[in-house]
C-alpha cells in the first residue's frame, strides 16, 4: 500500500487543504512583495495581512491588532513566554505550569529557572487534569505567570480554563495566563474574550494549513519584552522576514476550519468515539489513556495495548500504509518512556504499548475499520512473540 495512505498522526502535522495551496499561489508568483508604505505593491500586502489577521482574530473572538504572525507555534510560545518574563518578571519571580505540559512550555520553564526564576510544576491526575488545589496553594505574591497546554498533546485532556482563570483572579494580583493551543485550535470553540487568556500560541499546519507559520495572540494591554531583535518587516514581535504566502495559506486554513467548527468538532468526536469503541470491542487487554467524553479533545485517541511494544506496532502498521504515533521509549529520542503517561500514573508497559491516533476531517469510518482490523492482526502476532503475554495467557487458561 502507498506510504501514509491512511494518516492518523494529525497532531504532528496535517495534510494541507487544496484550497490552502491555491490561496498561497499568487503570493509566491506575482504578489511576492513585502509590506510597505506609499507604494502600491507594499500597500497591497499591508491590506492583505490586515485581512488575514481579521480572519484569525474572528476565529478566536479577538481583535486583529491582538494577532501576531510568527514562524510557527514554537516561535509564538517563545515570544510570549520569554516576552512575559522580560516584561513582568522581577528577581525572585514565580511561574507555574504542570508536569504534563507540551515541551515548548517545559523547555521554556527550565530555561527561565536557569535564569533565576522559580518554577512550580503542578501534578496531574490519572486523566491528565492539572491539580487545581495545588495551583491555589502554589500561588504567591511573586507569581506573575501561569501557563498551560489547553489540549494535552499526548492524551487529549482539555484543561478547565475558566476555573483556572478564576483561581488566578482570586489571588488578588495580576497573574498572566499563557496557553499553548497547538492541539486545541481548530478543533473546538475558543472564545478568548471570555477565557481571560493573555497570550496564546497557535499553529497553521495542524489545521490543514502550511508548515512554518503560526500566530501569537496578545491580549490588549499585555506587554511583551522583545525576544527577537531586528528589522521590522511584517510583525513587531517576530522581526525580520515572514513568508506572506504562508500567512495567506494559514488564513485560508482558518476560514475552512471555522466555517462550521461545531460540525467539525462533532464529526471528529464521532470518528474518535467509533475508533475507541471498535478497538475496545475487538482487541483484548487495551485501555484508553486520558478522559472520555467532552472533557477530551475530539480528535485524540490514545490507547495502551498491553504486553507488546509500540515501535513494533507502529512499524507493522506503517508497512500497511498506516501512519500513527507511539509513546514507547524505543521510538523516543532519549529511550525514555513517555513523560505524560508516566506522570498520570501509567506503568512502563502501558507507556511502551501506547498508541496515539489523532484524526482529521479527512479521516473516514472505512479507514478506521481498516486500521482496527490490521491492528488486531498485528497485536495477535506480536503477542504470540511476547514473553509477557505468554505468561498471562498461561495464567488465564
Amino acid at each position: 500500500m502507498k506510504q501514509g495512505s491512511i494518516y492518523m498522526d494529525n497532531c504532528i502535522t496535517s495534510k494541507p487543504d487544496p484550497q490552502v495551496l491555491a490561496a498561497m499561489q499568487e503570493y509566491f508568483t506575482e504578489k511576492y512583495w513585502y509590506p510597505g508604505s506609499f507604494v502600491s505593491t507594499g500597500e497591497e500586502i499591508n491590506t492583505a495581512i490586515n485581512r488575514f489577521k481579521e480572519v484569525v482574530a474572528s476565529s478566536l473572538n479577538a481583535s486583529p491588532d491582538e494577532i501576531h504572525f510568527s514562524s510557527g507555534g514554537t516561535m509564538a510560545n517563545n515570544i510570549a513566554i520569554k516576552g512575559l518574563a522580560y516584561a513582568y518578571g522581577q528577581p525572585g519571580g514565580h511561574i507555574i505550569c504542570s508536569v504534563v505540559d507540551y515541551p515548548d512550555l517545559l523547555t521554556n520553564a527550565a530555561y527561565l529557572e536557569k535564569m533565576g526564576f522559580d518554577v512550580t510544576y503542578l501534578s496531574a491526575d490519572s486523566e491528565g487534569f492539572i491539580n487545581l488545589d495545588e495551583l491555589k496553594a502554589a500561588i504567591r505574591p511573586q507569581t506573575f505567570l501561569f501557563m498551560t497546554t489547553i489540549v494535552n498533546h499526548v492524551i487529549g485532556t482539555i484543561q478547565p480554563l475558566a476555573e483556572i482563570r478564576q483561581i488566578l483572579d482570586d489571588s488578588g494580583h495580576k497573574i498572566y495566563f499563557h496557553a499553548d493551543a497547538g492541539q486545541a485550535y481548530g478543533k473546538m470553540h475558543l472564545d478568548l474574550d471570555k477565557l481571560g487568556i493573555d497570550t496564546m500560541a497557535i499553529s497553521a499546519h495542524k489545521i490543514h494549513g502550511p508548515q512554518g507559520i503560526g500566530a501569537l495572540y496578545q491580549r490588549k494591554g499585555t506587554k511583551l519584552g522583545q525576544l527577537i531583535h531586528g528589522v521590522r518587516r511584517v510583525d513587531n514581535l517576530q522581526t525580520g522576514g515572514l513568508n506572506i504566502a504562508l500567512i495567506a495559506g494559514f488564513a485560508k486554513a482558518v476560514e475552512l476550519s471555522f466555517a462550521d467548527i461545531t460540525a467539525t468538532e462533532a464529526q471528529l468526536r464521532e470518528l474518535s468515539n467509533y475508533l475507541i469503541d471498535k478497538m475496545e470491542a475487538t482487541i483484548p487487554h487495551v485501555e484508553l489513556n486520558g478522559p472520555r467524553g467532552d472533557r477530551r479533545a475530539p480528535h485524540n485517541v490514545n490507547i495502551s495495548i498491553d504486553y507488546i511494544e509500540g515501535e513494533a506496532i507502529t512499524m507493522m502498521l506503517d508497512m500497511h500504509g498506516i501512519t500513527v504515533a507511539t509513546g514507547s521509549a524505543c521510538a523516543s529520542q532519549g529511550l525514555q518512556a513517555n513523560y505524560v503517561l508516566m506522570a498520570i500514573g501509567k506503568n512502563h508497559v502501558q507507556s511502551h504499548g501506547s498508541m496515539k491516533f489523532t484524526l482529521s476531517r479527512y479521516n473516514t469510518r472505512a479507514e478506521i475499520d481498516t486500521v482496527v482490523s490490521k491492528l488486531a492482526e498485528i497485536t495477535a502476532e506480536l503477542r504470540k512473540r511476547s514473553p509477557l503475554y505468554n505468561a498471562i495467557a498461561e495464567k488465564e487458561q
Partner: protein
Amino acid sequence: MQYSEKVLEHFMHPHNVGKMEAPDATATEGSPACGDQVTVYLKIDKDKLVIDDVTFLSYGCASNIATGSIITDLAKGKTLEEAKKITWRDAMEALDGLPPVKVHCSVLAADTLQSAISNYEIANGLKEIPNFSKDTILEEMKKIIYPKVGEDIVSLKMVKYIGFSDGEVLIDLNIPSFDQWRDNIAEEIREHLEKYPDVKNIQINM
C-alpha cells in the same frame, strides 16, 4: 534512523520464535520497565553437548525481535563451546548492522543466550555458580551501550571507577551533565546489576 533490510526481514518473519515445551534450559533477561525483555529456550543433546533446538520470545521493538531471531539462528546446531563464543557483535554483523540507539538490543539477545547456556551448565554440574566480584560488575558494564554511538561504556572509557564491598556497588561514570542519555544509562546499569542477589545497593556517580 533506518533499519537494514535484514533487520526488517527478521522482524516481519522471525525465525525460531515461540515458547518451547520442556526445554533443557531457559533464561529471561531485560525488564518490561526498560521496554525490552527476551526469553531464550534451549534443547540440548546431552551427550554431544550440542544445541539441537533454540527458540525465543521477545517483548520489545523491531530490533529486539530481529536480534532474538538472529541469535537463535547463530546458536542452532552449535556445540555449547561454540555457542559460548557468540557475541552481540556477531548478532549485529549478521543483521548488516543496527542503528546506534538499537545496539543494546543485540546485547540483550546475546546476553540471554549466554545466560541460558550458563544455566544449563550450572544445572548439569558442568560449572560452578561464579562468585560475584568487581569483575562481574565490569563484565556487566561491557554490556551497556552508549546509545549515541552504539559502543559499550567500558570501551568508550566512560567507566572511571568500580567499587564493591558488603553488597554496595559504587560506579563512577564520565558523562556530561547535559547528555540526553544519562538517565537511560543509569537505568541500564541498575537493570544489569539488580538481578544479582549479592547486590544490595547501587550508587552511580556521574
